[in-house]
């Protein structure tokens, strides 16, 4: 079957593009960007062709080549093709493609545009590697590559110190999580002797207690990877700072794809997680969702609001995984990729039009000046808020339904509350940034972005509207719950109400509460009325509940202290020893040997004879 080659092409085209740009075309921005866009769009076309020819359940679900063997460790380089990975391929290449095209307009005046597209291609390659990986080690390698490309892209404007700091923060925080991930992988390998997902799943299906007492630990260690990459509490601090990167990067990496990798990974290795681990996962997710939603309420930077909203939605997804709902999690991941990419790109369009202004209180009255951005942003906001029939409603409701099904009413309440908060802060953003009066000179002179930036917005908004009813969840269900009966489009439209009416109604009620709250407070607000009403709570929200400060005071201080101790040992003890004995000894020996170097020929002759005599004594004398 010749389309076996397609997955490999999809995977390696962006890498080739990155290599070509870096090696040859770094001076030609348009050519470089076209190569990069071409690679990802070709990837998308190939994905569509492959799915068209083979469906979501290809006969050959795994292609792998042996990569290396060390003793009993066998590592394959392979691709896994099932509904989960194929849908993710569509998201990464599809949403990624739209963002690549958008970047062509957004980055056009940046002198580092070629470099930007090289990084973007590198990122796409790494992300596709995670999606297609058929074993833990391959996934881990691409996992790290994603971290590296994220680092490069956040720090893209490296001449700004804040961007450099944010890049380092993101990378180091991710590394913390990845350390746990690696330990988890080692644990699984040590206990089960295999790294291949299929083999592991087979083993655990036969004998679920194979991991024994380590099952919870292994599951939680692997979850650490997702905590880092998907920015869950307590490693959530990097995501908001990551907004220092260019806006398309925020859309692609820190909203649509990379941060979703953690959730994707959890679904991929779901069979490894036992009840206890799932419990922890669901509460971490729920807590993150609530925390981030509260923080988002009092942010004023348009990208930061979206960043915290991403955090909150990721919390939703992780909570869904923890509630044993892979389909809701992946469903929400997919719709979220559409509408969050849309929102970020819309925000980028606004920022671009207002000459890098990101404070929503300096925007306003953009409806007439930027109609396409306005309407698509509204679509994104409605979808994210979960207003039917937009996509977010269906996916969010499936998560709430899952919580009810598991009889976890606490997490259901958290989910419903977060839904209300989400609507509140999103409409706060919307009312303040787009309606009302123009609050700055820049906002008065805004203009619509070029077509290359608005077209991706339009395409994404189509999916943000329709993503909930085109059967994405059915595709995931065909993998996670194959015995469910297929439903028609009209059934899907009302599915949430049929499936769990209580969840849908409560969720909708919360959305309405949030909407009216935002309407009442922010419709014509000239400044934020909340700090006056909430007092200290609002300040805490605005300061992100002081997490950065707490980390600064505890972990970073402790780290600095340890570093100082190590520095002391190195500088005074080790270096003292080295300087004192080794260097000092050498010096002393040198000085004393110098005494023999008189320059007098006869001394040398005498010493030579003496040496010969000693040698002769040892050779002949004994």
């Amino acid at each position, binding site marked *: 079957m010749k389309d076996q080659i397609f997955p490999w092409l999809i995977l390696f085209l962006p890498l080739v593009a990155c290599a070509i740009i870096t090696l040859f075309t770094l001076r030609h921005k348009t050519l470089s960007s076209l190569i990069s866009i071409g690679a990802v769009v070709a990837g998308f076309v190939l994905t569509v062709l492959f799915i068209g020819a083979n469906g979501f359940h290809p006969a050959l679900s795994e292609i792998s080549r042996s990569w290396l063997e060390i003793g009993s460790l066998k590592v394959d380089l392979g691709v896994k093709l099932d509904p989960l990975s194929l849908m993710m391929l569509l998201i990464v290449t599809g949403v990624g493609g739209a963002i690549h095209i958008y970047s062509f307009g957004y980055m056009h005046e940046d002198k580092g545009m070629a470099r930007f597209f090289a990084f973007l291609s590198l990122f796409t390659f790494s992300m596709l590697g995670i999606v297609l990986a058929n074993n833990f080690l391959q996934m881990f390698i691409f996992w790290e590559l994603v971290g590296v490309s994220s680092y490069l892209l956040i720090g893209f404007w490296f001449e700004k110190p804040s961007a450099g700091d944010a890049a380092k923060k993101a990378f180091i925080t991710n590394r913390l999580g990845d350390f746990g991930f690696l330990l988890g992988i080692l644990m699984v390998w040590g206990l089960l002797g295999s790294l291949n997902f299929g083999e592991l799943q087979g083993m655990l299906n036969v004998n679920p207690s194979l991991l024994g007492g380590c099952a919870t630990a292994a599951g939680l260690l692997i979850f650490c990877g997702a905590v880092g990459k998907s920015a869950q509490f307590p490693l959530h601090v990097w995501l908001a700072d990551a907004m220092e990167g260019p806006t398309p990067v925020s859309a692609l990496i820190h909203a649509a794809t990379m941060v979703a990798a953690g959730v994707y990974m959890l679904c991929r290795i779901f069979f490894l997680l036992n009840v206890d681990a799932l419990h922890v996962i669901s509460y971490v997710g729920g807590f993150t969702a609530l925390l981030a939603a509260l923080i988002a309420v009092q942010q004023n930077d348009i990208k930061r609001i979206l960043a915290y909203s991403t955090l909150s939605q990721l919390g939703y997804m992780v909570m869904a995984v923890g509630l044993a709902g892979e389909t809701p999690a992946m469903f929400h991941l997919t719709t979220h990729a559409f509408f969050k990419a849309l929102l970020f790109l819309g925000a980028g369009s606004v920022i671009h039009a207002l000459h890098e202004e990101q404070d929503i209180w300096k925007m306003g009255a953009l409806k007439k000046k930027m109609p396409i951005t306005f309407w698509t942003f509204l679509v994104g906001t409605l979808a994210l808020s979960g207003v039917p029939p937009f996509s977010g409603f269906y996916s969010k409701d499936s998560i709430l339904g899952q919580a009810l099904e598991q009889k976890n009413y606490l997490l259901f309440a958290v989910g419903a509350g977060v839904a209300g908060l989400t609507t509140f802060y999103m409409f706060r953003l919307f009312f303040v940034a787009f309606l009302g009066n123009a609050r700055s000179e820049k906002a008065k002179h805004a203009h619509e972005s070029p077509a290359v930036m608005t077209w991706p917005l339009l395409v994404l908004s189509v999916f943000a509207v329709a993503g909930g009813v085109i059967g994405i969840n059915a595709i995931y269900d065909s993998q996670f719950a194959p015995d469910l009966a297929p439903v028609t489009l009209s059934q899907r439209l009302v599915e949430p109400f049929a499936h769990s009416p209580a969840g849908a109604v409560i969720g909708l009620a919360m959305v309405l509460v949030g909407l009216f709250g935002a309407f009442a407070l922010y419709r014509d607000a000239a400044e934020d009325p909340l700090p006056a009403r909430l007092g200290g709570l609002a300040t805490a929200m605005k300061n992100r509940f002081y997490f950065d400060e707490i980390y600064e005071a505890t972990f970073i201080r402790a780290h600095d202290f340890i570093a100082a101790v190590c520095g002391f040992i190195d500088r005074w003890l080790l270096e003292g020893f080295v300087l004192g004995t080794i260097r000092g000894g050498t010096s002393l020996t040198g000085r004393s040997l110098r005494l023999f170097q008189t320059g007098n020929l006869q001394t040398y002759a*005498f010493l030579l004879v003496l040496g010969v005599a000693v040698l002769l004594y040892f050779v002949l004398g004994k």
Partner: protein
Amino acid sequence: MHVGLEQYLTVSFLLFALGLLGVIMRRNLLVIYMSLELMLNATNLALVSFSRFNDKLDGQVVVFFIITVAAAEVAVGLALIVALYRKRQTVHVEDLTSMKL
């Protein structure tokens, strides 16, 4: 008195030691040079006597080589000493310590 290998070697050793003493003790480069020749000839004497007492000609052949080489070496060495004297106006080893750091 019977003169055997032992006596020859003793003379050779004494000559060698005298030469060595000259090399180490004397200050004049020319005299040192002569002492070196003395050491060479002490060696020659030892080689010849070994050759004689072992009824083999190898030692004699080696001595011929040494004499030839020594002749050449004397020519070169004396030329060097003359050149040195012209440059420094001295052939005393104490004055020739520019090798010292």
